């Protein structure tokens, strides 16, 4: 408990910014430990949503009038802000999408179109369904092969197996930065370098990392980085695909429609430049602008301190949970953060999650969209507590008391 007071940022002040955290459910103070699924939104973002629809609402990139120009400016400013935060070279490399899933599907469809039968794609055994199924569909469509890097019981990718799978046939490696189920932080920088050694491109699924650490796409040297706005304190329905400009330039468009064209005739259509080539139709304008606000908010937060705080939360939760009889923590990677998944002997995660819910504690139960991973551990699912920087040690204490009560009831 005392460790927290020394932190260079003040959790209590941060919590003040998140109205959703100050509510009661079933007459109990809400404890929100489902940040892996989605994050709560700071006041800055909430105000921006309201402001956009009350003052700015107009379609972008097409109007000469005042509102349209202002909305366009704000939307493009958000793109630039995100570009700067990711340290991307150009704002042309920031494509607005609907989210992580949409970004992966865009790459699978567009980059995938440039691949030949017999080419190979590598993923890992801990991927989210979003980073499995689009590749399976692509492989089926184009006659490619999907290779899966196995993990050890601690929940770490086996690097020697990865090296064995890499070959001249490998065209893309797509790996999650942080596992949503295990909390494992994968050594992606090294993995990216290895992929490049055989000439393969690398996609980072950043759905679970962007909200926990500073991301520098040039330092990582990844070819693609995808994430969802809603997990990084922004709105739902908006996300980002970062891609290296020369690569995005070579790739064919994903969807056709307005905004993505240069000139349309019935004989031939030429496409717009980046980033618009990949943004067909009216985009989620409010979403983009408010995601920019979420980035403005996280710029005000010291992410070095966030990393320390979130690791402290996960370590503390693990230590206390380990004292429960019959409880197994799933995932024990050396480099792990923000997520504690566990299962209890002879008890169903659904029962535990339901009883915690009635005590005001929001956790996720089930397979977390990682069914192959559950099969690996031979369990139907886990109970997962996932933390954000606004969570506290006191909340973990309350969670543990509630868990104890639930287990007594289920005995």
């Amino acid at each position, binding site marked *: 408990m005392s460790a927290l007071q020394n932190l260079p940022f003040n959790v209590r002040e941060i919590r003040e910014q998140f109205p959703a955290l100050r509510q009661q459910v079933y007459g109990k103070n809400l404890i929100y430990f489902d940040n892996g699924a989605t994050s709560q939104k700071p006041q800055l973002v909430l105000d921006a949503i309201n402001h956009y629809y009350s003052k700015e609402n107009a379609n972008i990139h097409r109007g000469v009038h005042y509102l349209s120009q202002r909305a366009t400016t704000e939307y493009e400013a958000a793109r630039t802000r995100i570009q700067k935060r990711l340290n991307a070279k150009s704002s042309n490399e920031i494509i607005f999408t609907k989210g992580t899933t949409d970004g992966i599907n865009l790459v699978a469809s567009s980059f995938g179109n440039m691949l030949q039968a017999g080419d190979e794609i590598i993923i890992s055994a801990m991927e989210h369904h979003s980073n499995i199924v689009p590749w399976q569909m692509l492989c089926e469509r184009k006659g490619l092969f999907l290779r899966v890097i196995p993990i050890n019981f601690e929940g770490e990718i086996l690097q020697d197996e990865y090296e064995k799978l890499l070959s001249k046939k490998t065209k893309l490696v797509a790996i999650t930065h942080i596992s949503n189920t295990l909390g494992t932080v994968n050594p992606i920088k090294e993995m990216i370098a290895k992929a490049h050694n055989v000439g393969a491109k690398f996609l980072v699924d950043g759905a679970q990392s962007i909200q926990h650490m500073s991301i520098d796409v040039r330092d990582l040297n990844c070819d693609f980085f995808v994430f969802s706005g809603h997990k990084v304190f922004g709105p739902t329905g908006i996300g980002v695909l970062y891609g290296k400009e020369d690569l995005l330039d070579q790739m064919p468009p994903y969807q056709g429609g307005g905004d993505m064209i240069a000139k349309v005739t019935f004989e031939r259509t030429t496409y717009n430049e980046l980033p618009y080539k990949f943004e067909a139709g009216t985009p989620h304008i409010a979403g983009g602008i408010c995601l920019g606000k979420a980035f403005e908010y996280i710029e005000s937060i010291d992410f070095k301190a966030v990393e320390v705080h979130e690791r402290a939360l996960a370590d503390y939760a693990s230590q206390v949970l380990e004292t429960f009889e019959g409880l197994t923590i799933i995932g024990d990677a050396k480099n792990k953060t923000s997520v504690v998944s566990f299962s209890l002997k002879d008890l*169903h995660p*659904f*029962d535990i*999650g*339901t*009883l915690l819910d009635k005590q005001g504690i929001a956790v996720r*139960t089930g397979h977390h969209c990682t069914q192959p991973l559950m099969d690996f551990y031979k369990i*139907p*699912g886990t109970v997962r507590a996932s933390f954000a920087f606004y969570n506290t040690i006191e909340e973990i204490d309350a969670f543990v008391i509630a868990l104890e009560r639930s287990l007594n*009831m289920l005995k």
Partner: protein
Amino acid sequence: METSMDINKIQEEIISEFEMFDDWMEKYEYLIELGKDLPIIAEELKTEDRLIEGCQSRVWLNAALIDGGMSFSADSDAIITKGIIGLLIRVMNHQKPEIIASNDLFFIKEIGLQEHLSPSRSNGLLGMVKRMKLEAIKSLNKK
């Protein structure tokens, strides 16, 4: 056939039982006890065709028409789900198929458990209720 109580009377009875509970945890304590008491169905009846797969928990349902009334037995891997199954069976067991097919299960909402039967919950319970009605309709058509 066993004489069955009016299906709405049983529902009223359950509602008044639940009125005694002061808070959510007491309700769930009761559901857990019900779940523990539910006679589990024979292992050999837990077949693929009796399985209702939910995202969160799984339910097995066996249905038969005995002496003009529907006879249900069911099981789940989650105890709270089993408790709710216990209530559903208490309401529907031994009722005539035509009553089951057309009855509105109003007690679920009244005792505050409708979240467990919402389509998004996918714990197998909504699927189970649908299957119970379907089995009742099937046995009507057989007659």
